[in-house]
């Protein structure tokens, strides 16, 4: 019987669903608390066949995955994928290098650089995001020069060093919604629309969810996105534009609790099935 280690700190609805899905498949699960484990290669013995990284903390997850990979344990997602997806700038670079349609972007560190980047991105509005961040936190739509200077000064004075690396993105006018697609092993499993009257559509910010049919274009874009970031279990956020789908972000520890009901798809089951395939590979 395959033994699956689920690396967690806080147990959310998603982790409970993964436990249920594993139980339905007869998979033996070890819940490995990252906050209670000493990752010492001299003493740690991995009594499991495959690990699924589900830490709410990107930093904790990164080190736990690197540690287990060093011991030869297959981990979902692999550190290569996580390293790209945890950073919006690295994600944009990987998408661009692989010809995946995505909004224009730039990395800057000063107000003067930001002014030039605004021109390069087609003028205001632009979006400023933390390169490392999630749940729609600290996103800013910058509509004019005054706002640009204010936001960047606040980051410069109050921010931590990572927040002073300014990821700028072309603002994409979307039809009151975006698309989140769930990918396992390169193939789209299902997708949802996230609708909101606010320009930020994250469900963590109140976006409403409904089923999105998997079109040929969506499947193809998901496949190319997975190839660009190294594959695995991914949640891809896409914009619908007049020129076609455009990939906004890629998440490597997907949250899906709001998406199983509207799609009717057992996403937790797809997660476990992919882990079983990774263990057998």
């Amino acid at each position, binding site marked *: 019987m395959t033994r699956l280690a689920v690396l967690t700190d806080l*147990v*959310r609805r998603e982790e*409970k669903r993964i436990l249920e899905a594993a139980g339905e498949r007869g998979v033996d699960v070890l*819940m490995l*608390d990252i906050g*209670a484990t000493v990752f010492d290669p001299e003493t740690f013995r991995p009594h499991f066949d495959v690990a699924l990284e589900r830490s709410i903390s990107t930093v904790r997850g990164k080190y736990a995955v690197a540690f287990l990979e060093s011991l030869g344990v297959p981990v979902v997602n692999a550190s290569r994928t996580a390293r790209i997806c945890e950073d919006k700038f690295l994600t944009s670079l990987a998408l661009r290098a692989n010809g995946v349609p995505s909004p224009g972007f730039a990395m800057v560190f000063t107000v003067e650089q930001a002014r030039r980047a605004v021109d390069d991105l087609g003028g205001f509005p632009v979006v400023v995001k933390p390169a490392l961040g999630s749940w729609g936190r600290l996103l800013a739509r910058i509509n004019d020069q005054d706002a640009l200077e204010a936001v960047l000064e606040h980051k410069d004075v109050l921010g931590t060093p990572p927040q002073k690396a300014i990821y700028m993105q072309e603002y994409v006018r979307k039809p009151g919604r975006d698309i989140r697609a769930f990918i396992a092993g390169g193939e789209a499993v299902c997708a949802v629309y996230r609708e909101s009257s606010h320009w930020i559509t994250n469900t963590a910010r109140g976006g409403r969810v409904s089923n999105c049919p998997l079109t040929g274009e969506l499947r193809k874009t998901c496949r190319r996105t997975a190839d660009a970031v190294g594959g695995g279990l991914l949640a891809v956020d896409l914009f619908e534009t007049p020129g076609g789908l455009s990939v906004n972000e890629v998440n490597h*520890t997907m949250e899906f609790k709001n998406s199983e009901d509207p799609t009717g798809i057992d996403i937790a089951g797809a997660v476990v099935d992919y882990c079983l395939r990774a263990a057998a590979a």
Partner: protein
Amino acid sequence: MTQEAVAWTASGCCPLCDAVVALRDTAEAGEVITCPECRSWLVVRSSDGSRIGFEAAPVVEEDWGQ
């Protein structure tokens, strides 16, 4: 160290308001719950028979998310 499923119907005290907080047997160690009295977020940490240990949930950190 591993987390264990908390397979009981049991209770413990909220570390913030001292209210008695009862849980169903589907609770998992590490799970975040809400205190019914003070609405604080609590993490299920330990069990001793029918007694549960709770901690105040950590505040959201900059690197939290998906």
